[in-house]
């Protein structure tokens, strides 16, 4: 049986009186990319630092490739863990060339083999032509790729990424993300990445673990989390929501858009959560069963168009429709709900 590349067992960590991590367990198997997703301050960076050995374990255990490397009385320093870490600010050594940065983690004395490894790592991220440059001469994207090559060059079994794309502008981010995923897949390493960007997590991850206040509140494949969020918090993390209040009765909650199935006891107050894309918008008269509404504002976003609509009682809802064809502002429309995309949670 192969052991997970990284296994975190019931980790808790506090800075003074602030509890950063509270009883967290997580495993990453070889070749898998796992994203820790959460708002800033939820403790996800602390988990990464504990895994790397940059923080000493207070409670719980850290295993790398089946070996215990961190426990309250036991600490393998980062230099003894053979892992790769890509920092948010890249942390390239400013006095070393790209080539020497990437070679920094290589402990081989054979210069020919060393150079071969460096060039291979740089080739994987498409930077072979920049080996003699210094970090300050590189663009943000090139710096990020150098940092990735540096982390991968020693051939670690585990790579940790700390918000690796947050320093890049949006346009560059997508391009660098492609290179990163490809290089990680090629190396076959296990990857644990930390991010606050749900879209990024969905793009990169085989599995996502959503963190809140030091705990994992839900873990699963990106599609799982998107389609079956276990809480309002998780649902809200993956995008804008319409939130309707209601009360459970007979396994259902009555909303403006009709009944939605709910596994809640009778009388429980509930939040019905609807993604904007779950509302079907049709022109007035086409869909007599639907709820009448009036278009308040229209925001064409390119691939889709976001609408803000007012219901007859004045309540506002948001809807998203594909393409650029959309009703004009102030137009009368009808709204219908896809019940499969509505989620019901007990109210806070």
């Amino acid at each position, binding site marked *: 049986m192969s052991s997970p590349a990284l296994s975190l067992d019931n980790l808790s960590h506090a800075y003074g009186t602030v509890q950063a991590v509270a009883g967290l367990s997580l495993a990453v198997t070889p070749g898998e990319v796992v994203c820790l997703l959460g708002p800033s301050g939820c403790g996800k960076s602390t988990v990464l630092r504990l895994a790397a050995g940059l923080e000493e374990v207070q409670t719980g255990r850290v295993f790398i490739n089946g070996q215990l*490397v961190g426990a309250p009385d036991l600490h393998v320093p980062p230099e003894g863990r053979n892992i790769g870490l890509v*920092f948010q600010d890249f942390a390239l050594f400013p006095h070393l060339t790209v080539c020497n940065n990437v070679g920094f*983690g290589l402990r081989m004395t054979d210069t020919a083999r060393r150079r071969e490894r460096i060039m291979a790592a740089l080739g994987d991220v498409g930077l072979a032509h920049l080996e003699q440059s210094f970090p300050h001469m590189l663009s943000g994207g090139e710096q990020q790729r150098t940092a990735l090559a540096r982390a991968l060059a*020693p051939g670690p079994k585990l790579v940790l990424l700390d918000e690796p794309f947050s320093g890049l502008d949006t346009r560059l981010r997508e391009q660098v993300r492609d290179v990163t995923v490809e290089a990680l897949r090629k190396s076959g390493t296990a990857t644990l990445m930390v991010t606050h960007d749900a879209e990024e997590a969905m793009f990169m991850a085989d599995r996502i673990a959503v963190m809140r206040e030091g705990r994992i509140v839900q873990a699963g494949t990106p599609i799982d989390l998107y389609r079956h969020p276990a809480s309002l918090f998780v649902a809200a993390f993956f995008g804008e929501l319409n939130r309707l209040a209601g009360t459970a009765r007979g396994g259902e909650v009555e909303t403006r858009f009709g009944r939605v199935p709910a596994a809640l006891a009778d009388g429980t107050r509930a939040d019905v959560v609807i993604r904007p894309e779950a509302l079907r918008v049709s022109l007035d008269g086409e869909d007599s069963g639907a709820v009448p509404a009036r278009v308040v504002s229209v925001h064409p976003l390119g691939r889709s168009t976001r609408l803000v609509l007012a219901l007859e009682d004045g309540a506002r809802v948001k809807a998203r429709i594909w393409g650029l064809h959309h009703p004009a502002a102030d137009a009368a429309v009808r709204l219908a709900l896809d019940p499969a995309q509505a989620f019901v949670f007990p109210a806070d």
Partner: protein
Amino acid sequence: MTDIVQPSPKAFRRPVIDGWTLATAAIAGVIAVPIFVVLSYLLVPTGDIWRHLASTVLPRYVGNTLWLMVGVGTGTLVIGAGTAWLVTLYRFPGRDVLQWALFLPMAVPGYIIAYTYGGLMDFAGPVQSGLRAMLGWGRNDYWFPHIRSLGGATALLTLVLYPYVYLLARAAFTEQSVCVLEASRTLGAGPWRRFFRIGLPLARPALVAGVALALMETLNDLGAMQHLAVDTFTTGIFRTWLGMGQPAAAAQLAAVLLVFVIVLLVLERWSRGGARYHQTSSRYRALPSLRLKGIKAGLAVAACMMPILLGFAIPLGVLIWWAIRSQALGFNARFVTLTVNTVSLGLLAAFLAVLLSLVLAYGTRLRPTPMVRGLTRLASVGYAVPGAVIAVGVMLPFATIDRTIDAWAKAAFGISTGLVLSGTVVAVTFAYLVRFLAISFNAAEASLAKVGRSMDDAGRVLGRHPREILTQIHLPLVRPSLLAAALLVFVDVIKELPATLILRPFNFDTLAIYAYDLARNEQLAEAAAPALAILVAGLGPVILLARSIGRSRPGHIS
């Protein structure tokens, strides 16, 4: 999850205290010893000595020292803040040269300006002789300000110490928000009102810190006060120790002086705490320098030229004149030996100071525990403590250790080891470290702080030990700052007089001691050669300062 817990072979039990913390604590603890030794004399009852001191010399020491502090404090504040305001806010001919030339008097140690003016202004000196010859006066026909007086000493120290205030005031005025000053102009405030109502209050923390530094140097001065016959605590300590051979009494005086210093330190700390409030973002915005014309420009030039002329050009001129006039020029074989001695001491102290500072700063960076922070702060108060006080604090424990070793060696092997520590290069180098470690420590800490923490993390994840990270990542990055710090320590050691005088090995003289001895014997012309050498060395830090000014405000130098 695997059930069998198999610890990694590289795992270790966490030590209670790691090597870096231990090294940091050890260095800081040893450096702080002299200060504690002196402080302990506040508590040691020495009844008779103290009563004797209090009834004889103490009132004079206290009086002179306080008047000196008031005078030098006021003088440096007026000259330093005034010239700093002129060169930062106004444009006038020669401003770009003047703004760094105003640092030049910093290169002149107090005793050297005292020797030059002492020779220049004495009854037999060229000024009075010239006046007498020109006007036909006799000895009692005129009044002439007496340079060998409290007033003379105050004036001369002010002339070489105002750059401390100028340095910090200039930085503070430069960082002041341009908007605030422009707003005050639109509100109709004139230049004087702007200076007193906006500029000065905003720069107050920097000014207090600058004056505190100048006063610490004032308390440290020995050579100038002796030459000008002004009795202060420092000259008192020296006389009581070497002249009267009463170490305990000297230590008591040193302890009282240390209290003065602690007051200054608290004042400085407090003012620096306030400095945080007015950080502004306008660092690189060109200041709206107002162009001065005509008589106003002339007055501004004169105001900035005067301190440079009096505090630097005249002493330098006098020294060159003396050096040329004295036939042997003073540059003889003895001069070469002394230069070698001085440079060796300076290099040794500078090297050790930078090395220890690096360990201290890196140790603090690795484990910034309250204990480590407190210890390093303690180790860096030495810069405020007068050399004579440190000398006393070094001499007392070293002499005790020497006696102990000697007694033990005699008992065990029947041989006398003599002096191992006191009266050797060890003692004087240690005193330099106590006094100047803060300079290199602050530089090391500041430059290490600029290296992002993720650099350390990256290095460790890539398999390097903290020791290797220091040598392979930090050291290359902070090397320029460390070299600059080494230069500062080197020059300060070369200029240092009181501690060297008390602690140097027998027959081991430095340039400063040589100049001091010659001046004591009124062989001022012969003292010119060593004094000139010290002054030229002192130009090193001035050049560093001038360069850092050029760098800190790109686009502002025209």
